[in-house]
């Protein structure tokens, strides 16, 4: 189960409204490389993982991604506070505003709503872990692009933190692949593992 801590994982203190930036950054909430997809992907991939270390990594990173969802949402919220009608029209925010006003809706920068189509739960240990490594790189490059497009230092500080976490998570998933490879067979140079319904996964353990 989960419980909620009433604080952000890293502070978000954006002073200047900027709906144009918000409509770009929102892609890291509901876009194909976004945090909501990351959290969903990792938490849902846990059930077919054969080793505790892998389930632990997916649980902890998946949970952290939920905290990142909240950070991105806080950035969007602060960038779209107290807007005048003129600002909404002038900064290209009207197409979002007409449906969502200043609510924080999970969508890509293109306007496409969040979709589980952007993630995979294959049930195969190596396929899933390699997807996870790729997902961290894709999130990292999205943050690189956001840093190219945004000028506000308050926004950049929060985005830099999120970018760094992608790099750390990539590292941990790399270790997860190595753990899986060593455990499945130390000599298995070709990492694959037909991991449908493993014995471990089906076992109901006595306490």
């Amino acid at each position, binding site marked *: *189960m989960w419980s909620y801590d009433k604080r952000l994982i890293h502070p978000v203190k954006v002073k200047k409204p900027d709906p144009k930036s918000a409509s770009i950054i929102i892609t890291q909430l509901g876009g194909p490389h976004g945090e909501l997809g990351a959290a969903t992907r990792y938490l849902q991939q846990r059930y077919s993982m054969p080793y*505790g*270390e892998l389930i632990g990594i997916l649980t902890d990173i998946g949970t952290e991604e939920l905290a990142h969802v909240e950070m991105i949402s806080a950035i969007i919220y602060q960038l779209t506070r107290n807007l005048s009608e003129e600002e909404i029209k002038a900064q290209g925010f009207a197409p979002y505003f007409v449906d969502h006003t200043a609510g924080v809706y999970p969508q890509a920068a293109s306007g496409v709503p969040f979709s589980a189509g952007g993630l995979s739960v294959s049930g195969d240990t190596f396929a899933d872990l390699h997807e996870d490594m790729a997902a961290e790189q894709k999130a990292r490059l999205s943050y690189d692009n956001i840093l190219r497009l945004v000028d506000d230092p308050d926004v950049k500080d929060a985005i830099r933190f999120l970018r760094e976490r992608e790099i750390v998570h990539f590292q941990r998933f790399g270790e997860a692949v190595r753990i899986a490879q060593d*455990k499945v067979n130390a000599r298995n140079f070709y990492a694959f593992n037909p991991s449908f319904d493993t*014995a*471990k*996964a089906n076992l109901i*353990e*006595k*306490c």
Partner: protein
Amino acid sequence: MERTEMLSDMAGMPPLQTAKEEGNRPPTGGCPPMSCEDKKALLHEIRVCTFALIEAKLFLDSHPDDRQAIAFYRKHRETLNQLQKKWETCTNEVFNANCSRWTWVDTPWPWQSEL
């Protein structure tokens, strides 16, 4: 054919090992190992207390001035702290009870356990 045999047969690999087989479970520290029944009873107490807190918090969201509810919340918060402390000392579940191994990755996950 056993599933593990089928797996190893298909992949040309030995059967999957589990943490249990590798003997990764260290002895419990601080107090004698708990029986399955004792663990279940303690976990039940933790669940009851946690659920009472969830209910109290939810009630307080819409009744933030209810002093009786606040007192109820504080009382159960304190009880939960004690129960969790007991759980951590007397079992290897949830947290690492010994300092040489993070046993959190060794014990069964909620969907694998009969607890």
